[in-house]
């Protein structure tokens, strides 16, 4: 929580009109010597003086705090809580407009009628960031015209806050369900506990007698035992291969190229979320680099990497498409490389490149998560 400091002083339009009339009254008083005019002049001047004092007192010893959720995604509304605290012992703060200043989309100010002395007042509102990345809140613009709207006291409260905005998330269930991943074509390729038969082998000491395959035992004359395909999590590897547009690409084409990169990143993030949700073990590579999956918060790691991926750090071109991870897992390859680029990825469950990306994107937007 930071405290308000130097306050900017501005006379409002009403204030100018009021002061002009006051000046007129003063001159009229001086000219005529009519004391009742002086009385009115005194009244108006008092209104101005009190405006200055009270607007200042309204802003004094006031502090503002912001709370936002820890995980934000681009283009999704999230709740923001702003707490105004008045540290003055006896005097409440009235009529405050608070504007949260940052890179978010929503910039309208919020109005607070009163913050009681030694009390707090909360404001809630919904906001959103349009793009992924590290975004900044720089502070609060607090202003008041209390009590008479003649003088506006404004202050900027510097409260730096960095928030990480993940890429935009879509519901990709439709897209993935139509892929080979969900068609049962791919097995886990591991023996283990499960129901799908994997094979038969000779009985070894210690094997569960219940798993003896009697038919083949009879046929072979040797104890044979059933093996099953493991039903543990299936592993999917998301391979993101991106290159930055060449510096010769300008104008609309450049914008389209950058747009495609963002769409691919967003798609990658959406798939990551969906696959994790549907119990897949997901690994991720970006331009051949394996993103660490250590620790419990590995998804956050992936999302962070996607959020912080800078276009200028991308390689200028992609010669061939490959994955540094084993070919036994399912791969979903996403790239902005030209269509004919060589692929060295086995078990490819899905391949997304810029061709048809717009169509996919349009469809996804229709069913935004």
């Amino acid at each position, binding site marked *: 929580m930071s405290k308000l400091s130097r306050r900017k002083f501005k006379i409002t339009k*009403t204030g100018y009109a009021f002061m002009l*009339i006051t000046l007129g*009254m*003063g001159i009229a*008083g*001086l*000219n*005529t*010597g*009519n*004391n*009742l*005019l*002086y*009385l*009115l*002049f*005194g*009244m108006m*001047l*008092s*209104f101005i*003086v*009190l405006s200055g004092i*009270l607007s200042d007192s309204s802003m004094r010893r006031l502090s503002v705090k912001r709370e936002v959720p820890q995980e934000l995604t681009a283009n999704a509304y999230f709740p923001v809580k702003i707490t105004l605290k008045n540290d003055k012992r*006896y005097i*409440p703060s*009235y*009529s405050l*407009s608070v504007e949260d200043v940052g890179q978010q989309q929503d910039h*309208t*100010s*919020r*109005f607070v*009628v*009163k913050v009681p002395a030694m009390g707090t007042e909360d404001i809630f509102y919904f906001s959103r960031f349009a793009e992924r990345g590290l975004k900044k809140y720089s502070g609060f613009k607090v202003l*008041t*015209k*209390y*009590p*008479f*709207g003649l003088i506006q006291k404004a202050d900027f409260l510097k409260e730096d806050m960095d928030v990480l905005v993940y890429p935009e998330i879509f519901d990709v269930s439709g897209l993935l369900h139509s892929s080979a991943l969900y068609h049962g074509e791919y097995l886990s390729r591991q023996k283990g506990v499960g129901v799908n038969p994997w094979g038969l082998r000779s009985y070894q000491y210690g094997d569960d007698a219940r798993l003896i395959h009697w038919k083949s035992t009879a046929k072979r004359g040797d104890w044979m035992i059933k093996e099953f395909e493991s039903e543990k999590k299936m592993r999917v590897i998301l391979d993101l291969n991106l290159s930055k547009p060449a510096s010769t690409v300008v104008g609309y084409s450049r914008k389209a190229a950058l747009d495609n990169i963002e769409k691919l990143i967003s798609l990658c993030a959406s798939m990551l979320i969906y696959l994790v949700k549907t119990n897949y073990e997901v690994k991720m590579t970006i331009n051949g680099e394996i993103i660490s999956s250590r620790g419990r918060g590995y998804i956050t790691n992936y999302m962070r990497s996607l959020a912080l991926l800078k276009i200028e750090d991308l390689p200028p071109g992609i010669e061939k498409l490959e994955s540094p991870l084993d070919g036994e897992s399912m791969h979903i390859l996403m790239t902005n490389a030209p269509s004919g680029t060589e692929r060295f990825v086995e078990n490819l469950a899905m391949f997304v490149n810029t061709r048809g990306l717009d169509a996919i994107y349009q469809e996804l937007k229709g069913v935004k998560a």
Partner: protein
Amino acid sequence: MTFSSYFKLSSYLLVLCGFSALVITRFFTLFAFVFLLIVMYSWNREKIGFKIKLPKWFWNALTLAYFFYASYDVFFGSGDLIGQGINFTVYLQVYKLLNLKSNRDYFHMYILSFVNLLSASILTESIVFAVPFLIYIVLATWTFTLYNLKVQYEESLGKKNENRTEFYSSRKIITRKFLLATSLLSLVLIVFTSVIFFFFPRMSLGFFYKKVGNRKSMAGFSEEIDLGSIGSIMQNSTVVMRVETPNGSVTPAELERIYWRGTAFDSYDGKKWGRTSKEKEKRLIDVLTGAVKLAEYKPGAKVFVQRIFLEPLETKIVFAADEMKGIKWEKLKIERFLRKEIGVEKDIYGTSYILSSLSADQKYYAFSDLDAKTVYAPSNEEPVYPVRASYFEVPYNDDRIAGLVSDITRDITVDYEKAKAIERYLKGNYSYSDIDLNFEADQRPLEGFLFDLGRGHCELFSTAMVMMLRYAGIPSRNVVGFRGGNINELGNYIVVRQSDAHSWVEAYISGNGWMRFDPTPGAAEGFQLPSRSFGVLAKYFDYLKLRWYKYVIDYDLRAQARYARMFFAGARKFFTTASAVKQQEEEIKEKIRYGSGRYRKIFLMSLASIIVAFVLFMLIRVFLRRGSRSKKLQAGQVDFYMRMLKILRKKGIHKQVSQTPKEFSKKVLTKRGKKYGFIEDITEDYYSLRFGGNAVSKQRAKILDENLRRLKEL
């Protein structure tokens, strides 16, 4: 009340307050009534079915037409800029009231109400102005605060289509505390206003300025007066002037012998008095003393100093105790420089007229010699009358009057004695009557009075004596003015009212000049003219009025300097040792002519007001705290449950005697639904305090209060 109800109420009250300020200066009753009707219609516009919906072009055309009419009237017609300006402002207000929609309309209405107040300040100097002025400050504080809240709220919403009714219909924004705080604010505003008022330097440059105030007309002091006009103004108890006597107070007996001379007349046509000469001679103030000398004092004369506060009158006559020898204004050099002519015009009848029409010039010091026209010095020289022939003229020859005069003055040779004999005759043989006398159509009033009715009012007495003196060959004139007055013990000043109006006689006595005679019976013995009784309340009000004139209307740079000096001298004195005090006292005494005790008094008074303000502040703080902070409740303190029952009773929910609190709360819940849920909490607290012998914590008590408040709002 909701926010919007408060906002509407205070806005309308502000408009009414501005308008009432105007009404007290002009008294247009019908106009005010119509305006009130329009305000009432505007207030209920939403509720009543009948709606005045006139197209915008109509209003524009009407406004333009009215503007042109008003301009035409100002430039080519009546020339009454202020009057037309006020009418136009009121018209605009009516327009706004009938078309009140946006914030801007409200804002315009506030400006117009201020213009009303401003107009009133130009039109009046009366203390009555203080009432709408103070109310205006309180209402303006409320209204402007609410208006600003509304505007700032709407600005913060921008063009967003958020639901605004929640804000407007909220009862939590404007609470009792908020109103109290705002009212306190207006109190601070009043203090600030007074401080600025008293400290802002005063000047009166007087460019393009003509006082347009509501001056009271008063019959009897114009160029010509009908016989009976003094009698008619005597029916009126309006105050004409207030007089302070800086050199010591006057006893009631002394006051009865003071004649506040106005003007005099020389020609009488049988029905009315007039003047044959219009000559006037300018007497400007002496730049060094600021005074105008009107006549020389007789050797050994006693100077009677008066500080006169004249009410705004149409006449420019300088009233003062007879005989006025000099007049002085407390005006600044710069003002004298800027306004070329400050002084009086004096005519041959001994009347002085103020040159300027500024109200500030109606407050002056007058210096008089009360005995100048009554003390007779016998002279053996041959009488000479260096006066106009008109002082000898009679309108017609009436043998009866001539006979009467010769009877009265038989064997008397000295003019003064003759005059005294006539005065004595009239006093002794006729009686005073203030009722209107009806003479026959063909009868001359004077003859009717002298030979027929034998009674009349002072004008008849003075007219009769003037005529009789002229028959006796003594030059004489009829004088009008006021006699006596009332003493207001509160401020120790004299109040002279229209009912104190009087008419008397001046005769030219050779060797003595003009001498005063008053033939009205009882005059010398101090008879009571039919002046209205001066009740205690009226006394206080009049005292307040004088203060208002002295400290508000008549407050100027000189007074500012004087009070500042007094305050600082008082402060200095308060903090210095006794010997130093004495020394300083002497110094100050030399410098300014005010008593030493006064400094201490002023300083102590300032100090006392600061202490009183501080105590008030602390009391208010305690009051505010008491409302907000809930106290710990001890076992057995179950008033809150009674409060709850009372609130429920108001909502039509009654607890049967047979019901236990728990049964009752359950029944309310089943009947009224879950929103009454907190009744259970309150009941639980009740059980705990009433039967459990437990105390309730401060925190819990606060929740209890909150629950009761919520219950009330349901």
